[in-house]
C-alpha cells in the first residue's frame, strides 16, 4: 500500500485524463499484485534449524531446468525433510507449497500421505484441499490418486458422484474423472442412478464416447446384455440416436460392441432395419456395420445347414461390394484396411465373386517413392 501511495498514485493524480474509475482499477490492481510475496523458507525463522539440501544434478547436468528462486527454495527444504524423514506440521505445510509448484511430483504426494497418517490430520479438511486442487488441475494423475486414498481412508464416497459430475461438466471426457467415477461406483455399489446420469450426458452431447462407454459399463455390471429385452431396448436407443445424428461413430460402435459376442445377425430384423436406414441416414459407419452383419452371417452359415450355396455367394458378393465401396469411395482414408478385409474374406470363403478378378494388394510400387 505504501508503494501505491508514494509511487503509483502521484503520477496518476497529476494526469488530468484519469477519472475515478481508473483510480479504482489501479487501486485494486495494487492490492492484488503488490502484496509482499511470501518469504522464502530460507528467510523464515521456523526453518532456521534445518539445512536445505540442494539438488544433486552432478557437475555436467543435462535437461537442467532453470528453476525459479521460489521453486529451488521449497524443494531444497523438501529434500532436507525427506532425508531426515521428518514428520511434523511444518513438513506437512511445505508439501502443499511443493505441490503448488509441481503437482506431478509423486514423491511429494507420497510423503504428504505419510504425514497425513503420522500426524493424524483431519481427513475432511484434506478432502476440501484435494477438491480445490483437482478443480485447478483436473488432468493430473497424482491428484486423483490422492483423492482416492483419502476416500478409502474415510470410507466415505458420499461426495464423489457430485464432485465428479462437476468436473465432467467442465470437461465431459476427462479420463481421470471417469476412472475415479467407475472406481467409486464399483467399490461402493452406487449403480442406481448412473444410467440416468449417462443419458443426461448423451442428451447434452450424443457424440460423447466416454458417456457411451459408461453406458456399456453400467449395463454390463447390472442387468448384463443377455436378456433379449435389454438388447432390444439398447438397439432402439442406438437407432434413435443414429436417426438424430447419422454420422456419430460412437452410436454405431456401441451397437456393434454390444452385439458382437452373440453375433450381429442374432437380433431378428436388425439387418432389415439397418438396410432401411441406409436409404436416408447412410454413413461409412452404417456400411461398415452392414459388412459386419454379412461377415457374421457367412461365419454362422458354416454351422447352419439351411443356408444354401447360392445364398452364401450372395451374402459374400454384397459384403465384397461394400468393401469396394468403402475402399474406393466412402471411406478412402481406410482404403488399405478395406482392401485387406475384402481379400481376407474372399480367401476365407474360398470362392471368388462372379464378376472380377481379385483386387491387387495395392500399387505395385517398389523401393523408394517420392510423393508430391
Amino acid at each position, binding site marked *: 500500500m505504501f508503494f501505491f501511495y508514494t509511487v503509483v498514485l502521484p503520477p496518476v493524480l497529476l494526469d488530468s485524463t484519469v477519472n475515478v474509475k481508473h483510480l479504482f482499477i489501479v487501486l485494486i490492481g495494487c492490492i492484488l499484485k503488490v502484496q509482499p510475496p511470501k518469504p522464502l523458507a530460507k528467510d523464515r525463522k521456523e526453518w532456521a534449524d534445518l539445512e536445505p539440501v540442494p*539438488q*544433486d*544434478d552432478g557437475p555436467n547436468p543435462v535437461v537442467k531446468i532453470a528453476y525459479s528462486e521460489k521453486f529451488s527454495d521449497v*524443494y531444497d527444504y523438501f529434500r532436507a525433510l525427506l532425508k531426515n524423514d521428518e514428520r511434523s506440521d511444518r513438513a506437512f505445510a511445505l508439501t502443499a507449497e511443493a505441490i503448488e509448484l*509441481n503437482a506431478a511430483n509423486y514423491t511429494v504426494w507420497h510423503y504428504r500421505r505419510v504425514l497425513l497418517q503420522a500426524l493424524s490430520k483431519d481427513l475432511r479438511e484434506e478432502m476440501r484441499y484435494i477438491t480445490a486442487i483437482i478443480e485447478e488441475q483436473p488432468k493430473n494423475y497424482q491428484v*486423483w490418486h490422492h483423492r482416492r486414498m483419502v476416500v478409502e481412508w474415510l470410507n466415505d464416497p458420499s461426495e464423489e458422484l457430485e464432485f465428479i459430475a462437476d468436473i465432467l461438466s467442465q470437461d465431459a471426457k476427462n479420463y481421470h474423472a471417469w476412472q475415479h467415477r467407475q472406481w467409486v461406483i464399483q467399490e461402493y455399489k452406487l449403480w442406481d442412478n448412473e444410467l440416468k446420469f449417462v443419458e443426461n450426458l448423451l442428451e447434452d452431447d450424443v457424440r460423447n464416447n466416454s458417456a457411451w462407454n459408461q453406458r456399456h459399463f453400467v449395463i454390463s455390471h447390472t442387468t448384463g446384455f443377455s436378456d433379449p429385452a435389454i438388447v432390444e431396448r439398447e438397439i432402439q436407443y442406438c437407432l434413435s440416436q443414429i436417426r438424430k445424428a447419422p454420422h456419430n461413430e460412437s452410436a454405431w460402435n456401441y451397437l456393434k*460392441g454390444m452385439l458382437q459376442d452373440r453375433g450381429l445377425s442374432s437380433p431378428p430384423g436388425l439387418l432389415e432395419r439397418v438396410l432401411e436406414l441406409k436409404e436416408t441416414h447412410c454413413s461409412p459407419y452404417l456400411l461398415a456395420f452392414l459388412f459386419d452383419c454379412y461377415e457374421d452371417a457367412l461365419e454362422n452359415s458354416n454351422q447352419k445347414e439351411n443356408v444354401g450355396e447360392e445364398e452364401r455367394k450372395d451374402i459374400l458378393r454384397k459384403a465384397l461390394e461394400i468393401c469396394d465401396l468403402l475402399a474406393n469411395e466412402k471411406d478412402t482414408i*481406410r482404403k488399405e484396411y478395406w482392401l*485387406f478385409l475384402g481379400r481376407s474374406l474372399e480367401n476365407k470363403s474360398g470362392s471368388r465373386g462372379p464378376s472380377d478378378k481379385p483386387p491387387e494388394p495395392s500399387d505395385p510400387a517398389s523401393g523408394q517413392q517420392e510423393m508430391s
Partner: protein
Amino acid sequence: MWQRDGGQLFKKNFFFSFCVKRAVLRCLFVHFLLHSSYQLFVINPSFLCFRPALLREQHYQYLKKGLRHLSDAYECLDASRPWLCFWILHSLELLEEPIPTAVASDVCQFLARCQSPTGGFAGGPGQHAHLAPTYAAVNALCIIGTEEAYNVINREKLLDFLWSVKQPDGSFVMHVGGEVDVRSAYCAASVASLTNILTPKLFEDTTNWILSCQNWEGGLSGVPGLEAHGGYTFCGTAALVILGKEHMLDLKALLRWVVSRQMRFEGGFQGRCNKLVDGCYSFWQAGLLPLLHRALFKEGESELSRQRWMFEQQALQEYILLCCQNPAGGLLDKPGKSRDFYHTCYCLSGLSIAQHFGNMDLHHEMILGKEENRLVRSLSPLLLGSWRIIRMYFLVPVLENEKKN
C-alpha cells in the same frame, strides 16, 4: 475450445465450403477454421509448394539446446527428467543426429543420479522410483548404447523394484503407493526384456489383466471398464508383444478400432473415438499397425499387404509435416498449440513409421516431400532389431532370491 468441443457438425459444414487440394485443405481446415491465422503461409513457404519439408536444422537446434537447458516452464516436468532425456535422444536418433560422446556420458551420469538405491529410476535425483521414468531411463541408456550406459543400470535392484510394484491380480502400480494402469505393464515388460531380467513368474497373470483391458470398442483402456484410448492401447498391445501373448487379443476388433482412429480430413490420428486429432497419436495409434501386421502374419493371415501398413501413410505424413511443425523447431499436437519435447518425439516417431514399411527382410519407403525428410526407421522403444545387440550386455542372469518365490 479444443478440449470442450464435442460437436462435429459445425466443423463439417464449414469444411465442405472449401474446394482445394487435399494437402492444403488439411492444414487450412485445422488452422484457419479455429485460429483464423495465416501464419503458416507467411512463416513456412514450403507449405505452398506441396513438397513439404521437415525442418531438420530447426528441430536439431531445439533438441540440442533442450538436452542441456530448459526454461522454468519445465518446472512441471521436474518429476519426469528421464523422460526429457528419452524424448530428446530418441528424436535425435530419428533425425540421425549423432550424440557427442561427452553429452552421452553426461546423460549416463545424470541418469545414474536418478537411479534409486532400492532399484528403478526416479523422475529426478533424490525422488522415489517410478515405472515411467524407469522406462524412459532404460530406453535412453539403450539409445546411447555404450558400455558406460549399460553399466549404469543395476539389474538386481531393478528386479527388486519390479517385484515391489507387482500386484496380486497381475497388474503393476506405477510406484510404491501409486496408481495402477496398463502403462505400468508396458514399462515393466520393456525394461525387463531389455535388461534380460524377464521371468514368467514376474509377469504371472499380467497377460490376463492386460487382456481384460480390451473393451467393447476393440481398443484397450487404462484399466478394465474405461474407454479405449490410443496411449493405453499401445502400451497394452506392446506389452503383450514383448510377453509373446499378443495373439490372445481379439486382433480383428483391435485392428478395426485403430484404423478408425485416423481422421479422414486431418490425416492424423485421434486418441479416442469422437475426439480431436493430436500429433502424438501419430505414434501411439499408427505404431499399432506394424505390431498388428506382425501379429496377424504370425497367426497365418495370408492377405496382408507386402508394401503398406493398413493406414494412410501419405495422409499422416501430410498432417505431421504441414500441421505439426513449429517453424522455430520442435513439433506439436495441432496448429495453435505450443511445441514440446513429448510431441517432438512422438510426431517424429509417427513420421518414421509412416515413411517405412517392413521388417528385417522387407522394406518399402514412401517419403512425402523432399528426400531429406527421410527419418531413420524407428526401432526403439520396442528396439525389436537391436534387442539381440543390447541383450549381449546383459547376459548374466539375475537370480531371484527366495523371498519372491
